[in-house]
């Protein structure tokens, strides 16, 4: 497959903005949806709309089937041992909040310690801070080196007798470098510490086998993997999920409700209170299908690697441009580049690129601690998907040069 051909499956990519062809380079924030996803979304509303699990009528059973089939597909995608280890949420943020609350209720006591890295997204920092406030626990921070790499050795020094959980991203949404998560998990497990992996960026780029990786929790969002917005997954090892109390109470998650005491439904319903995002969850199936077909296509892989090499060369060749997350080996880097420009504000660059038809992200990228750590007020980020072409990358570089010339 060629990126140019794949684009036909994404109707929005044919759009013009300000009379110029749209060049969408904000995929790390949200990915565009292929027709296969849009069709399932439509079908759920036009043909299968009913509430799931409880009612006995025909529509309810087709909706339930579509919803539960998705759980099997996600289980297969992650190679989870049990289907009840797959919990549907509204996204990575909800998944991490669920763990921070429920794991925290079950296992965190005053004076206990939690570890996150400095490069985490706010959604993998703030839920843990809230937990620390509730339980009077302590949040410790794992630093990175000047290239943007996490060193597993420094984690060893940070772990203590009181460390109860480590939460780390597979790939940072700012640096775009693959973290040594397997090594981190091995180090933690030697000391009996569970690890939550924030897979929001990682799942898009890496094939994940949760049994092989042996992570205790994995969180990711549907909208970044070409599925409908408002979908997400929490994978958790059964042994933890069973020990954890429910996060939200309501319909679906109960066994019996009595004023004398309520019992809870078994996994996974225990963590899926209330009416779920029924019309959107099934879009995860075509999204995963699409992602897997692209991942296995050597031509597509080659094109993406070419873009990564091209942008690494171009962005490191300009003395004014500072790239954050410069990989030691090209294969460590995904198509995600955050940079700042001497003498030009990130917002000005993004605003000018926008008027040239190029959608980029600017600001703190929901990672203010990392911005402080790197000593910047913000950055510009471009992030690529398999439907982006090398020509788009080249156009971006040309337009970036023009923007810099206007501003400096």
């Amino acid at each position, binding site marked *: 497959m060629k990126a140019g051909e794949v684009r036909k499956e994404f109707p929005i990519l044919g759009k013009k903005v300000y009379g110029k062809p749209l060049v969408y380079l904000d995929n790390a924030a949200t990915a565009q949806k292929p027709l296969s996803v849009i069709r399932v979304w439509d079908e759920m509303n036009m043909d299968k709309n009913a509430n799931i699990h409880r009612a006995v009528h025909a529509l309810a059973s087709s909706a339930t089937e579509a919803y539960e089939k998705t759980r099997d597909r996600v289980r297969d995608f992650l190679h989870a041992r049990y289907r009840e280890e797959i919990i549907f949420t509204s996204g990575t943020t909800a998944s991490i909040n669920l763990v921070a609350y429920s794991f925290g209720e079950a296992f965190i006591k005053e004076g206990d310690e939690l570890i996150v890295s400095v490069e985490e997204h706010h959604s993998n920092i703030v839920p843990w801070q809230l937990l620390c406030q509730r339980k009077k626990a302590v949040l410790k921070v794992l630093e990175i080196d000047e290239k943007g790499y996490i060193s597993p050795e420094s984690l060893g020094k940070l772990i203590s007798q009181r460390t109860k959980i480590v939460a780390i991203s597979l790939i940072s949404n700012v640096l775009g470098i693959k973290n040594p998560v397997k090594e981190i998990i091995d180090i933690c497990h030697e000391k009996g510490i569970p690890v939550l992996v924030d897979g929001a960026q990682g799942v898009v780029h890496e094939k994940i086998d949760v049994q092989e990786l042996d992570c205790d929790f994995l969180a990711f969002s549907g909208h970044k993997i070409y599925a409908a917005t408002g979908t997400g997954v929490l994978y958790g090892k059964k042994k933890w999920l069973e020990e954890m109390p429910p996060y939200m109470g309501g319909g679906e998650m109960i066994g019996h409700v009595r004023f004398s005491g309520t019992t809870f439904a078994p996994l996974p319903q225990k963590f899926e209170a209330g009416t779920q995002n029924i019309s959107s969850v099934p879009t995860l199936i075509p999204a995963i299908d699409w992602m897997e077909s692209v991942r296995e296509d050597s031509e597509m892989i080659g094109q993406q690697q070419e873009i990564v090499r091209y942008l690494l060369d171009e962005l490191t060749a300009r003395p004014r441009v500072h790239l954050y997350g410069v990989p030691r080996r090209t294969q460590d880097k995904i198509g995600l580049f955050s940079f700042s420009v001497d003498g030009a504000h990130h917002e000005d660059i993004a605003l000018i690129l926008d008027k040239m038809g190029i959608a980029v992200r600017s600001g703190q990228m929901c990672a203010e601690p990392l911005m402080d750590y790197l000593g910047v*007020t913000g950055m510009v980020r471009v992030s690529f998907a398999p439907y982006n072409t090398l020509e788009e990358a080249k156009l971006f570089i040309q337009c970036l040069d023009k923007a810099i010339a*206007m501003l400096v």
Partner: protein
Amino acid sequence: MKTLEETKQDVIGEFSMYDEWLDKYEYLIDLGKNLDSYPEELKTEDRLIKGCQSRVWLDYALQDGKLFFRADSDAIITKGIISLLISIYSGRTPAEIAADDFSFIEEIGLKENLSPTRANGLVSMISTIRQAAQDNL
């Protein structure tokens, strides 16, 4: 000195000379680069305008019954926008500013052509200028 209305018409005229928004940005960038320098010691928390993603400081003084504004920003297009506002409203009486509806912003299509965060920033800049006028009526 031109009246408030005349100055606004000048700005609207200036803006309409450019068809392309990129050219309008170029004009704003020029305005930003040529804005009078702003003292470092006035870059204080209380002069920082809330609601902007880039940092914008606005300071004002009342002299002979007129308000004089000065400002700075770390982003140049934002600085151009605040420069535009200053060129229109600096040297006016609080009553003149308070009575103005700031509709020229719509006439030049500025707000719609900013990202949502910048549009919020613009709204915050305007409300800060209005507040200054209100406080000195």
